[in-house]
């Protein structure tokens, strides 16, 4: 017995089925409790090309292999938990549509580089956040607390608007070849967050932050390869921010 509703549902299901494509996900697996070596493992999925890579990872974890480990929190490009290296480029899994990354070929997914892999796609973010803490990413002022909010002109706000967008996903820092080779380099993310306060008219510790970044492992190690600008899922002009910090250092010294 087929009611019109059923027909519609069946038609929808048949229609849905034709939308699905078969995609191979080649995921870099690492489990220190099983083996000291990381290996590539293939998963085949029937998935809608308009879904995101994160949806595919969920499908693998929930339906194929529950041991697959990755970080994600908000799943909407705000929390910055799920930065990973997809098809050789650092991206957020929750902002990358499968149709955009040539799904006819196997899609490689691996942990971001330059940080210690703990398991599968999860890395140790401690060095990254230590560099972030080192640049004092908070408002520093002197004198009495004002009774109202600290006012700022629209132009003054515009000056550092770009670098306020950072979500600390580490896509930029883990795409930087200098950081890959020497983890002591502050990395683009820390410099971006220093830039956010150095050029804030309300902040009074700009000089201190510049002095921190004048370090041997500070801004002068930047080789302007633009990997960070390419990697940033928020579209921050990271290399430009680093260059502005360099320029501020030079113009304030000479």
């Amino acid at each position: 017995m087929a009611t019109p509703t059923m027909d519609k549902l069946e038609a929808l299901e048949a229609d849905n089925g034709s939308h699905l494509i078969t995609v191979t996900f080649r995921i870099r697996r690492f489990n220190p409790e099983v083996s000291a070596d990381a290996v590539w493992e293939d998963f085949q999925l029937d998935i809608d090309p308009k879904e995101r890579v994160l949806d595919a990872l969920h499908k693998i974890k929930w339906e194929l292999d529950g041991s697959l480990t990755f970080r994600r929190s908000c799943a909407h490009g705000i929390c910055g938990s799920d930065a990973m290296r997809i098809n050789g480029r650092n991206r957020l899994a929750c902002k990358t549509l499968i149709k955009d990354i040539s799904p006819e070929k196997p899609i490689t997914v691996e942990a971001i580089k330059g940080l210690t892999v703990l398991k599968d796609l999860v890395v140790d973010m401690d060095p990254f956040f230590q560099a972030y803490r080192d640049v004092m990413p908070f408002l520093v002022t002197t004198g009495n607390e004002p009774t109202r909010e600290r006012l700022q002109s629209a132009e003054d706000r515009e000056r550092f608007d770009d670098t306020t967008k950072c979500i600390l996903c580490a896509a930029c820092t883990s795409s930087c070849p200098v950081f890959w080779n020497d983890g002591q380099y502050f990395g683009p993310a820390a410099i971006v967050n220093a830039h956010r306060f150095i050029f804030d008219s309300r902040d009074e510790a700009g000089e201190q932050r510049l002095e921190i970044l004048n370090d041997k492992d500070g801004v002068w190690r930047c080789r302007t390869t633009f990997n960070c600008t390419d990697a940033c899922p928020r579209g921050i002009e990271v290399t430009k921010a680093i260059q502005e910090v360099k320029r501020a250092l030079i113009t304030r010294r000479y």
Partner: protein
Amino acid sequence: MSADTTPAKTPGVGPVEGVAVYDVDHPAPFIEAPRKRTSKTPRSTRGNFEMAAWLFMRLSGVVLVVLVLGHLLIQLVLDGGVSKIGFAFVAGRWASPFWQGWDLLMLWLAMLHGANGLRTVINDYAERPNTRLWLKGLLYTATVFTILLGTLVIFTFDPNIR
């Protein structure tokens, strides 16, 4: 499962299921966080040297474009090209303090510019402190030797040498 080893052999790794290796009386070993500031951390390496080196690369680069392109033009293109170069040609040029100054400036800037570039390459690519030390030692020795020898030749050049 073959990965199941006894707790005594791998104290850092407990079985995922089963008896816990650590409890209140046997706490897990403390693992120090990377990049943490401890007494063993090297002292701050701030100072204006890296900034000066960075600025020198930009400024010397601009000057070298003029000096080197001018040098190549005079030596290889103008007035019959490369075939004119000989002892007499060099002697004639170095008779003038202007060309002496040009060559001296080019020698110093090019050598320091190149050495500084190689220093950053070594810093970026040599991972062990000892490798860095030896490579940079070799680099600085070669640089100082070449600069001093070149300067000596420019100032003590004798066109009547036999």
